[in-house]
């Protein structure tokens, strides 16, 4: 795993945490769990077929982490190491449950425009071909803060194809850097960005549809 600047910082902070875990510090463990568990469940959910299966995989991951913590050498960040274990377990579980993610799902498929071409003026327009047919309607200031809209976004993300879902989950929901996501998913920067672009565009359409329904 390439060590970029964010990774180095994390490694430095990790060593005291790893020491605490090895020493049996329950508070440190619970703090780590509190920080990572929900994100790990969300990640696993992208591979397996139910919330319960995702919880199982994450618990198995914690067990493996605790088994391996004494031998952890700190060459990568603790989080990356944990997620590496999680990814392996999630994939195995998915294969076992006969719902595997084909490698090709993480590769961008053939080029498709991320925004519906009908939103723009057609090539035949004499003056403004390719420009907005009409400007998008601005969303109300507080539209995206509501629980309702957050649920729309969450569901839209869950409906994404696996590769797009994984990238959007890591980048926009979990806030990982582009480098970290590429390393975790073995993607090139370019491929990662294409997946992110398509994911965001699909989710945006869902939001626009929802917000459009709300405004009178």
């Amino acid at each position, binding site marked *: 795993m390439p060590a970029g600047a964010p990774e180095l910082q994390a490694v430095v902070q990790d060593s005291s945490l790893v020491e605490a875990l090895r020493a*049996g510090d*329950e508070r440190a*463990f*619970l703090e780590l*769990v*509190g*920080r*990572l*568990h*929900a*994100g790990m469940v*969300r990640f696993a959910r992208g591979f397996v077929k139910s919330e319960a299966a995702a*919880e199982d995989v994450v*618990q198995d991951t*914690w*067990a493996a982490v*605790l*088994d391996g913590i004494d031998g952890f050498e700190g060459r990568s960040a603790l989080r990356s190491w944990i997620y590496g274990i999680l990814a392996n377990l999630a994939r195995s579980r998915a294969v076992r449950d006969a719902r595997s993610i084909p490698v090709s799902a993480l590769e961008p498929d053939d080029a498709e*425009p*991320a*925004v519906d*071409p009908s939103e*723009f003026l057609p090539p035949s327009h*004499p*003056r*403004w*071909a*390719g*420009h*907005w047919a*009409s*400007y*998008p*309607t*601005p*969303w109300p200031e507080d*539209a*995206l*803060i509501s629980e309702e*809209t*957050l649920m729309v*976004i*969450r569901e839209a*993300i869950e409906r994404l194809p696996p590769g797009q879902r994984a990238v*959007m989950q890591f980048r*926009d*929901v*979990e*806030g990982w850097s*582009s480098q970290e996501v590429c390393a975790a998913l073995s993607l090139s*920067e370019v491929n990662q*960005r294409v997946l*992110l*672009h398509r994911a*965001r565009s699909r*989710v*945006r359409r869902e*939001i*626009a549809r929802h917000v459009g329904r709300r405004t009178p």
Partner: protein
Amino acid sequence: MSRALPSDLVCMVAVERLTDYLDGALPIEERTQFEEHLVTCPGCVIYLRQVRAQIAASAALGAPRPPAEEVKQKLLDLFRSSRGG
């Protein structure tokens, strides 16, 4: 391309470059071209604002959520037994 100015960026192409723009991944000339386009296009400015709002909302989904009490307890038991307690 606008019929009149073929080298111009049109909205349909601009929205495809948005993710690259936000990631700082556009080469300098294309970034400048994109920003020049925003000056001329309220539609793309609105679109950009919407995408930024969407990203912020997505981040709200990622706020750490403590695991259920029983899950926490199970993990604590796991921890204790792994540490030989």
